[in-house]
């Protein structure tokens, strides 16, 4: 059994080499790593830009200037302009922006927030609350709030934006790589009649599918090493990362095999592949906006996987998430593998 498995694996690796799988996987990882390291700025932010103008000259002018200077230090996209009209002009050019115009009425400052219109009421309330809080602090009215941090070890250092997108790449490339590549491999063999020939040999379908999944794991690990090595060096928890990539690859490849069993060629299956890929990529939104986690995203298996990969790449000591995700994916991988074996047996019998 093992001999047959290794013989099949050798054949699949040779097919992969001949069809540039290894070259492409390494090239994609290097391109991504170089772009992250040299082109994406560290301080890139998805937060809205702010355009402001202060006309107010009363007693609180100093406090307002102090608050704005603090914001300018913290956020790279706070811009001073010369009038309310200029605020609006700039906002119209940049839809992810807000405006602030400070003037005076009856001797007191009037702070006008100009929004685009799509912002929800809660965001607007938070904007006003945040300004009120800053003014109170600048007037020396600071109230301490007792905070209970459950796991002080997990307190995270700020990750530069460019490096923070590495877990997204590790999820969509090395981990989900097998989902698409395995389809192409299977369809090529369907076309060449290799599967049919294999079915009349003593070889078992489990060995045939397992060797393909192993090739995807090898490719996934190569991509992970190249990309993570260039972006974060030795700082990642590689053992955990390899564990996650391996179980993720088994799951995605087995899923690819299930899809492939229902179609005859890549063009027919393309839409399902694209739809599942997009669905599994949705947790990226929650990754970039951590408080946006609707149930339909949380139930996707790639949701915990993405955060577990982040934990492995930027370790904070929260190892439970890695263990629980690996365990979940072991169960999912076994289930999808069993289903893929059955679906191949059924389609092979049909053919």
């Amino acid at each position, binding site marked *: 059994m093992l001999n047959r498995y290794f013989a099949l694996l050798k054949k699949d690796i040779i*097919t992969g080499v001949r*069809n*540039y*799988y290894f070259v*492409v996987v390494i090239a*994609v990882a290097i*391109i991504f790593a170089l*772009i992250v390291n040299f*082109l*994406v*700025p560290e301080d*890139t932010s998805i937060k809205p830009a702010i355009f402001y103008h202060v006309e107010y000259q009363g007693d*609180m002018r100093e406090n307002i200037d102090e608050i704005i200077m603090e914001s300018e230090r913290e956020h790279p996209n706070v811009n001073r302009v010369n009038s309310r009209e200029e605020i*609006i002009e700039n906002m*119209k050019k940049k839809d992810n922006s807000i405006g602030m115009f400070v003037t005076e*009425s009856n001797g007191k400052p*009037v*702070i*006008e*927030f*100009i*929004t*685009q*219109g799509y912002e929800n*009421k*809660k965001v607007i309330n*938070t904007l*006003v*609350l945040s300004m009120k*809080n800053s003014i*109170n602090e600048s007037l020396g009215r600071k*109230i301490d*709030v*007792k*905070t*209970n*941090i*459950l796991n002080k*070890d997990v*307190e*995270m250092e700020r990750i530069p934006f460019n490096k923070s997108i590495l877990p997204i790449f590790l999820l969509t490339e090395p981990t989900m790589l097998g989902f698409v*590549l395995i*389809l192409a*491999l299977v*369809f090529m063999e369907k076309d060449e009649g290799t599967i049919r020939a294999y079915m009349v040999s003593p070889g078992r379908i489990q060995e045939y599918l397992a060797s393909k999944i192993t090739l995807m794991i090898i490719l996934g690990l190569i991509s992970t090493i190249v990309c993570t090595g260039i972006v974060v060096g030795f700082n990642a928890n590689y053992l955990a990362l390899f564990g996650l990539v391996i179980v993720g690859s088994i799951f995605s490849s087995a899923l690819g095999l299930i899809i492939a069993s229902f179609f*005859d*060629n*890549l*063009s*027919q299956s*393309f839409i399902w592949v*694209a*739809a599942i890929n*997009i669905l599994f990529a949705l947790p990226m939104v929650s990754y970039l*906006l*951590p*408080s*946006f986690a609707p149930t339909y995203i*949380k139930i996707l298996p790639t949701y915990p996987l993405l955060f577990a990969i982040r934990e492995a790449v930027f370790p904070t000591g*929260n190892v439970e998430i890695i263990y629980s995700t690996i365990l979940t994916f072991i169960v999912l991988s076994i289930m999808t593998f069993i289903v893929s074996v059955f679906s191949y047996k059924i389609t092979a019998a049909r053919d």
Partner: protein
Amino acid sequence: MRRILSIFKRDILSSFRDYIILYMIIAPILLTIGFRFFIPSAQSAGLQFAVDAKLDTEIVNEFKKYGDVELYGTVDEIKTRVENIDDIAGITKNENGEFVLILQGNEAHDTKEIPKMIIREIISNEDLNVEFKVNSLGLEESPVATIGTISLILIAILIGGIIIGFNIIEEKEANTLKALNVTPMTKFEYIIGKSITGLILPIIHVFLILWILGITEVDNTMVLIMTLASSLVGIVVGFVVGIISSNQITGIANMKIIFLILSLTIIGAILLPQSKHFLLYWAPPYWIFTGFKGILLNTATWGNLINYIGWIIGLTFIIYIILRGKIKKGLA
């Protein structure tokens, strides 16, 4: 002309046989419907609070003004919820009646700081001698909706190209290309015939996408012209993938590299500051993204549009010239 139409007819018939054309038509529509359901929840995204159910209703309501509130009966339940993957702040009171904020430790800045501000707002008695006003520009489409719509449009444009590419690979594998080479059909007729699908489908899709998403207040002529120009990129991508790939596997491998470059261009256009956009000028998808963004936000003038289309056609032509030899050789 008859031979061009025959190539187009053959592609359509062969696609109908495999239901490919049906999938091609339906896919972007289904994605758009899915996206339409996604937009409201993404636009209403705010902070999350796990609040002690024993706190006064006024306090709970105060938190509701700033985010989504989940009520929990015990402090342990709040802690369990806070320890989940997503960012949520726990709020309770200790035995002395003081507010206590419960955090896991790895939350984003806003989840850590905003609950403190809300608590300060609740317990503060000081009168702030400042007036606040909020006015809006009346824009209804959020950046999420705009970027999502453009991404769907790009998918629709590229689907046409991908199908062209994989049709060519299939024809190569089935030796149909060799058979066509001994007919009177010229390479030019073959290329034009193959390209018709990549031109017609995106037009249908783009207008359907805009209609499903309720985006009606745009200049339809601008949309049409931009779609036609953008389709050239999809077609060239399709031909390049089809010609440089000897089989479906290498087709997928080549598509991966092309798609990585395309996606990174779009991500760059979204995330890079305007001052660094010149780094993306070489990529036609950047101009497609910029053009459609201007059209959707109604900020693009005809002058801008001609500029964007000029870049798209110019760059696509340069790519074609560079690869012309390879395309001819690949079709031979």
